[in-house]
């Protein structure tokens, strides 16, 4: 195990800190009665954690593909289960995204959540802990515990604070995702019995027999495809996204969906490379279906949240497409798209939350014609909409460009269909923007965004432009890890 790790050289275990600070904050909430104090403490916890995670970026060494900031302690000796943490180029930005979004989620729920504030903040912080844990874990069991533990607060977020159909949406979400992960557990045990340890890096690139890889890949892929969600497994997503409270939707769209594509990059490709190559054509076809189908479904939506939810299906299609081209450009594009989708879709959900707080409707018709009434809001909304269909100069353009380069270099026909999907994306986002901005003549008086709302959207604007105009620091940081993945994969081609 040690040979895969660069041990943590900071004076404190930084990864454990980022995982457990939110948890500690959540426990602290129990002892506080005052509602406002609860919100402030949740916010402070989130901000502190974000600042600490910035240290990760500062001290990250982009010249190695090994796992950095490693921590490694025996946990359950009998079965060689370790408390092993470490991050590489793939996970660094996903963690930063999570820690960035958590305080924003607290802020966006400041007034939107009126009842059971304490429990709500508790769930948010618990989610943050579990999500960071998923990205940091280098031990299968540790990973699986975080992976499943994530479901419980998410379920509660939808089930308690959700919209009118929260009951249906929450239970569907829970059962759907759980049924995928149970087979993940079986696959994990199979890998463990073959390699003799639960270490994730240790299980990579071992050249197992093809039949073994075939079944393990399938078990992995179902769990991850449900999380992504890929085309035939996407049906939980619109319900859950639509009914969840704003903060829940943001977490779902921005981080939870990334778990699936992260799973493909971290588990499927390195552990079962031969099977990944074997199944790649099927996955590519499913991704293309997701891109085009998601786009066309979006055209007919009347509910803003539902539309954005389906657009996530299409966007995540680009991510899986990029991964299964097995090219450096594809991988880079996929990873950038994961981040970009997290930022842009998160921002769009935040925007919908802002308008929902004022009009109490998510219907496009009820919210149309806001251009004159809420100019500042329309500015933000328009900006993020442009970013969502990959307007040049925004973050999604860079990501999609990388994915398309990767796709064309490996398969021209797939590239062609992906382009069609990108066009449809422009159509539905512009349609939405048109309706919301101009839609109808209206003289309603709705208050424009307040300072708090502007504050939590601004960081996202910065990121949209930063990645869109100057992606080099991001690409540079992730490249070494992905290059290693490409070279290892080529051994099996």
């Amino acid at each position, binding site marked *: 195990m040690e040979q895969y790790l660069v041990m943590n050289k900071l004076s404190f275990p930084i990864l454990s800190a980022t995982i457990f600070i939110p948890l500690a904050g959540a426990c602290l909430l129990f002892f506080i009665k005052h509602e406002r104090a609860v919100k402030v403490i949740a916010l402070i916890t989130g901000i502190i954690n974000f600042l600490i995670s910035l240290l990760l970026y500062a001290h990250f060494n982009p010249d190695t593909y090994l796992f950095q900031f490693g921590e490694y302690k025996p946990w*359950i000796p009998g079965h060689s289960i370790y408390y092993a943490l470490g991050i590489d180029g793939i996970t660094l930005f996903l963690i930063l995204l999570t820690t960035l979004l958590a305080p924003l989620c607290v802020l966006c729920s400041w007034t939107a959540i009126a009842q059971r504030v304490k429990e709500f903040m508790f769930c948010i912080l618990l989610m943050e802990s579990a999500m960071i844990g998923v990205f940091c874990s280098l031990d299968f069991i540790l990973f699986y515990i975080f992976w499943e533990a994530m479901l419980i607060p998410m379920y509660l977020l939808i089930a308690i604070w959700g919209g009118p159909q929260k009951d249906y949406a929450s239970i569907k979400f829970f059962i759907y995702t759980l049924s995928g992960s149970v087979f993940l557990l079986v696959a994990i045990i199979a890998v463990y019995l073959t390699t003799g340890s639960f270490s994730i890096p240790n299980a990579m690139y071992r050249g197992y027999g093809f039949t073994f890889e075939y079944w393990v890949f399938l078990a992995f892929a179902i769990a991850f495809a449900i999380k992504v969600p890929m085309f035939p497994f996407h049906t939980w997503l619109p319900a859950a996204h639509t009914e969840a409270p704003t903060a829940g939707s943001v977490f779902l769209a921005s981080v939870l969906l990334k778990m699936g594509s992260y799973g493909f990059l971290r588990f499927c490709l390195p552990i079962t490379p031969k099977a990944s190559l074997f199944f790649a054509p099927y996955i590519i076809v499913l991704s293309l279906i997701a891109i085009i189908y998601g786009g066309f479904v979006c055209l007919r939506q009347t509910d803003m949240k539902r539309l954005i939810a389906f657009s996530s299906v299409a966007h995540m299609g680009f991510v899986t497409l990029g991964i299964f081209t097995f090219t450096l450009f594809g991988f880079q594009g996929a990873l950038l798209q994961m981040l970009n989708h997290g930022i842009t879709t998160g921002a769009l959900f935040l925007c919908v939350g802002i308008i929902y707080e004022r009009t109490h409707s998510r219907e496009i018709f009820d919210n149309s014609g806001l251009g004159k009434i809420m100019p500042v809001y329309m500015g933000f909304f328009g900006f993020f909409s442009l970013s969502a269909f990959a307007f040049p100069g925004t973050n999604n353009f860079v990501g999609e460009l990388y994915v398309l380069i990767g796709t064309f270099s490996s398969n021209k026909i797939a590239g062609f269909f992906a382009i069609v999907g990108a066009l449809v994306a422009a159509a539905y986002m512009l349609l939405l923007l048109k309706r919301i901005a101009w839609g109808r003549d209206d003289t309603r008086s709705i208050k424009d965004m307040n300072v708090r709302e502007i504050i939590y959207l601004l960081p996202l604007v910065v990121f949209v432009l930063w990645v869109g105009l100057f992606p080099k620091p991001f690409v540079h940081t992730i490249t070494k890890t992905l290059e290693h993945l490409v070279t290892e994969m080529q051994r099996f081609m």
Partner: protein
Amino acid sequence: MLLLPELYMMLLAIIFLFISIGKRKGNVVACGQLLSILGVVISLSSIFFKGELFYGAYRVDLFSQVFKVLLAAGYCLVILMLGSKDEIEHEYIAEFYMFLSFSTLGLMMLVSSVELISIVLSLEISSYSLYVILPLRRAQVQVQHEASIKYLFFGAISSGIMLYGMGYLYGICHSTFLTDIIRVLPKFLNQPIGILALVLTLTGFLFKLSLFPFHFWSPDVYEGASHSTTTFIATIPKIAAAALLIRITSMAYLAPPVLVQILMVLAALSMTFGNLVGLVQRDIKRLLAYSGIAHAGYIMMGILALSREGNLSVVYYITIYLFMNLACLYTVILLSKDGENVTLDGLIGLSKRSPLLAFTLATSAFSLAGIPPTGGFTGKLYLFISAFREGYLTIVIIGAVNTVISIFYYLNLVRMSYSKEGNSVTPLKLSGMAKIICLIFIFFILAMGVTPSSFMGLFKHMVF
């Protein structure tokens, strides 16, 4: 002094006997609570005793002593949970305690018995006490009688079958001592007679564990018996049954595949049947009965591995099962009005009425479903690993599918108490004792999930 926990339990039974004869019954409940806590302490203090008694028919070793601690802890929790709820008429409480003590005594003797006749004796001491207290219930008039009759008949039949199997064992091995049987039996395990004897002998314990074809009593008994009796029957005899299953199957480590196949089929049927029928239950106690049938199937996964690791995981799982099952039943006890059964609808709005109780229920439901970071997951992981290591992939996959099926009804418990809004939001006041018990449950369920090594460290030395 080797018999300290048993002697103490007998002393308890006698004390309660005298109380029941006497006229003053004021503080029976408080007295019982104190004495039962003392019982746990005494069993803990005798955990490292070692020795043999009665010409080798009775063995005191770490295995039996740990199980005695579990039994004493379960007994203590049952007594504490009973509290002051008036579902059993007050004048019978002393008798009720007495029979509970006798039953626990029988089970304690059972886990130490290594000879067929003392096994039968201990098992019957425990069962007969339960036959008597089953009809003790104030609320409904009819159900508990049906329950007690069913329990009696099924119990008697399964004891009969077990004796039949033991007769064969004696016939083959010419001895009733397990140590002798271990020496002779493996030669006969390739023949039908050996397998038949073993499987028939197991029946008596599979009945207590409510595995599939021997499960018919459990839903009706759970539903009909008073909550306190249910909490006892649902957990404590299962612990002892698991212990005996381990003792007996460890005689058959070199068994031919057919024995494993029989157990595997039973386990698969038990899980699938329990979970499928569990889906449609409305009464929480019935639901837990079917969940118990399914869990018996999970436990069999460890037994059929026929390995040391499998036994270890069974011990772990039965321990966590004790806590999570009792935690679920505790909600029923606290929620029930006048001792009546609680349906799923009765849970509506629980998270507003009593957040702590709702959280306890949620923790135990997630644990029963096997979701990390609860002990239920860790236990199931151990079971899966031990069955998988012996190459029984099929049963592992069936177990995984069953986990998915079962999540629906466990989640229903959480869903009802959290996401459904009820009309009546009368707050449910928990006493200080109730709060402490809830916290104990939550602590153990989470602790066994996150730091299993501390428990495993102890269990590792006890199994064979």
